[in-house]
């Protein structure tokens, strides 16, 4: 180093330039996130805010309309309050229950018992599983007649509810399923519990505190920051519930069924934006789906029309089209499980709606045209299997 030779004034300047270089490198490291924030979070947020005051429909117009959208949402949209209520109901039920369950589970798994590692693994495993596969397993478990949950309840002389087929029980059913996957929160609590000093418990034990008191007066205060973090993240994720309402609907073709009891806020938003005409391109309208290059769109056309069934409609009546202007079908009557396997009807419905799709009830592989319903063509043989 030539700092000893050089004049004293050079030292601060050199440090300043070093600091500047360091700062520049720091910015370089966080730059990807800054770009991502502007492009995928901050920008879209501002765009959302601005568009909420316009009549934007994704294609051409974007005129300022003031508070009209909000007025429509609060006063006219039939499903806004329903979906909000459903979501709130679910969150209010789910957050305390899962928090309680994961804290309890974590304290139980914090005991020093041989084989605890295996237990931890077993309880954690469900939280990495999610998606359609798990929902389908749970639909089977919660099946009103043959599901294992109701069978077990039957052993104790309890007639189990209809779960996903009873509008009053759909949300509790989903909360019940969520209780199964509390492992993620449990792991956070477990890590926090292991950081609680052992002496505190020993001291309390000497003073004669019961296990419950020790838990309440030592464990809970010591892990409260993690509880706070977990409650906040669970709340956020709870308000974002979407997929359960889409996949676990009693009628596979009507998201949110039965009776819109699983119509959550985000599901409502998704359907409005991506399947109804608000913020959708014209080719997604039922009449013109054959021009669309997307098979998914055709299938969603099908979805839109499935709900518009009459209460006592025959199979063919159920296949009828609903007027394009109808955003959301009237709530479909709750049905039992046996009636739901009407695939040919669903296909015929889609064929009727989505253009050149020839569907034979017996031989579903004979579907013609490029623009077919997703389920019809992706899985032709699956439907026709013996």
């Amino acid at each position, binding site marked *: 180093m030539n700092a000893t030779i050089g004049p004293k004034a050079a030292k601060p300047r050199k440090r300043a330039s070093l600091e500047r270089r*360091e*700062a*520049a*490198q720091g910015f*370089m490291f*966080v730059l*990807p*996130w800054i*770009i*991502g*924030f502007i*492009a995928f*979070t901050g920008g*879209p*947020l501002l*765009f*959302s805010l601005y*568009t909420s005051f316009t009549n934007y429909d994704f294609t051409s117009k974007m005129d300022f309309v003031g508070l009209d959208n909000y007025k429509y949402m609060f006063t006219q949209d039939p499903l806004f309050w329903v979906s909000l209520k459903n979501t709130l109901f679910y969150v209010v039920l789910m957050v305390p229950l899962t928090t309680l369950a994961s804290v309890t589970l974590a304290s139980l798994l914090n005991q020093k018992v041989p084989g605890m590692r295996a237990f931890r*693994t077993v309880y*954690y495993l469900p939280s*990495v*599983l*999610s*998606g*359609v*596969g*798990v929902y*389908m397993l749970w*639909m089977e478990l919660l099946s009103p*007649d*043959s599901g294992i949950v109701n*069978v077990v309840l039957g052993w104790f002389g309890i007639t189990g509810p209809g779960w996903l087929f009873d509008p009053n029980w759909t949300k509790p059913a989903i909360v019940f399923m969520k209780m199964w996957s509390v492992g993620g929160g449990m*792991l956070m609590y477990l*890590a*926090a519990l292991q950081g609680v000093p052992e002496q505190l418990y020993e001291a309390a034990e000497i003073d004669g505190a019961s296990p419950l008191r020790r838990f309440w007066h030592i464990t809970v205060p010591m892990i409260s920051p*993690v509880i706070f973090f977990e409650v906040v993240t669970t709340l*956020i994720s709870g*308000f*974002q519930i979407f997929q359960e309402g889409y*996949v676990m609907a009693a009628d596979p073709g009507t998201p949110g069924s039965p009776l819109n009891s699983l119509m959550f806020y*985000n599901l409502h938003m*998704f359907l409005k*934006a*991506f399947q109804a005409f608000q*913020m959708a391109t014209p080719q997604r309208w039922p009449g013109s789906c054959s021009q669309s290059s*997307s098979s*998914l769109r055709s299938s969603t056309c099908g979805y839109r029309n499935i709900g518009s069934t009459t209460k006592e409609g025959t199979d063919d009546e159920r296949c009828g089209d609903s007027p394009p202007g109808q955003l959301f079908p009237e709530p479909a009557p709750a049905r039992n*499980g*046996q009636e739901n*396997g009407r*695939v040919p009807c*669903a*296909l015929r419905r889609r064929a009727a709606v989505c253009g050149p799709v020839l569907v034979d009830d017996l031989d579903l592989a004979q579907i013609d045209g490029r623009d077919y319903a*997703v*389920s019809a063509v*992706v*899985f032709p043989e*699956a*439907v026709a*299997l013996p």
Partner: protein
Amino acid sequence: MQYPPSFFPKQWRFHNYVETWTSVDFTRYTLNTLFISCVGVCAHVLSNSFVAYGFAKIRFPGRSALFTIVLSTMIIPGFVTLIPQYILFSKLHWVGTYLPLTVPGFFGNAFQIFLLRQFYLGIPNDLIEAAKIDGASHFLIWRRIMIPLAQPAIVTIAIMTFTGAWNDFLGSIIYLNNEEHYTLQIALQAFKVSSGLNQWHYLMAGSVIVLVPVVALFFIFQRYFIEGMNISAGTKG
């Protein structure tokens, strides 16, 4: 079907799996999903470990303010930005490709940045000082010191990303509209819609096929997983 169903089947039908697999182009959907998941893992590991290093170990003005913004973005529900993002990607003509599902991964994820930063904070600064004296740049320090030492946390975020991408339903159903590009999750949902609710044996076989890779991955890496999730460990350092 027997009623009520017995717990132990009288007869095992492994053929259900074969029939399910062949009835649908499961091979293609598996490869598609695998592709998205693997690109996602690479993207997230690279970007988040990079950004987290900047937040954990380099001093620069505005660092704590920026990090506060990172944390606050965790609170923003993804659904708020869903529609504008869709519009953005459709203007870029990315809808119908894998780009909307993979590219954002290269720009960091708040929770994973947070997780990795906590882990990095527990790594002693002496190592970085020593490397600096030897003339290493921050980039070299990140690549040669931080990544190897933060292995448990990196494996954790890799698995989180993989399972997240593997189980992703919303993104796939919005952005993929070509049947050839479908992922397992859409395929399974479509399978369910198409076969109704009385083909349970095939539906369950399909579910198991979709779930098995995640379970396998979990058992292979679970040692890292439980270690890396410990966010409070890093704060002690």
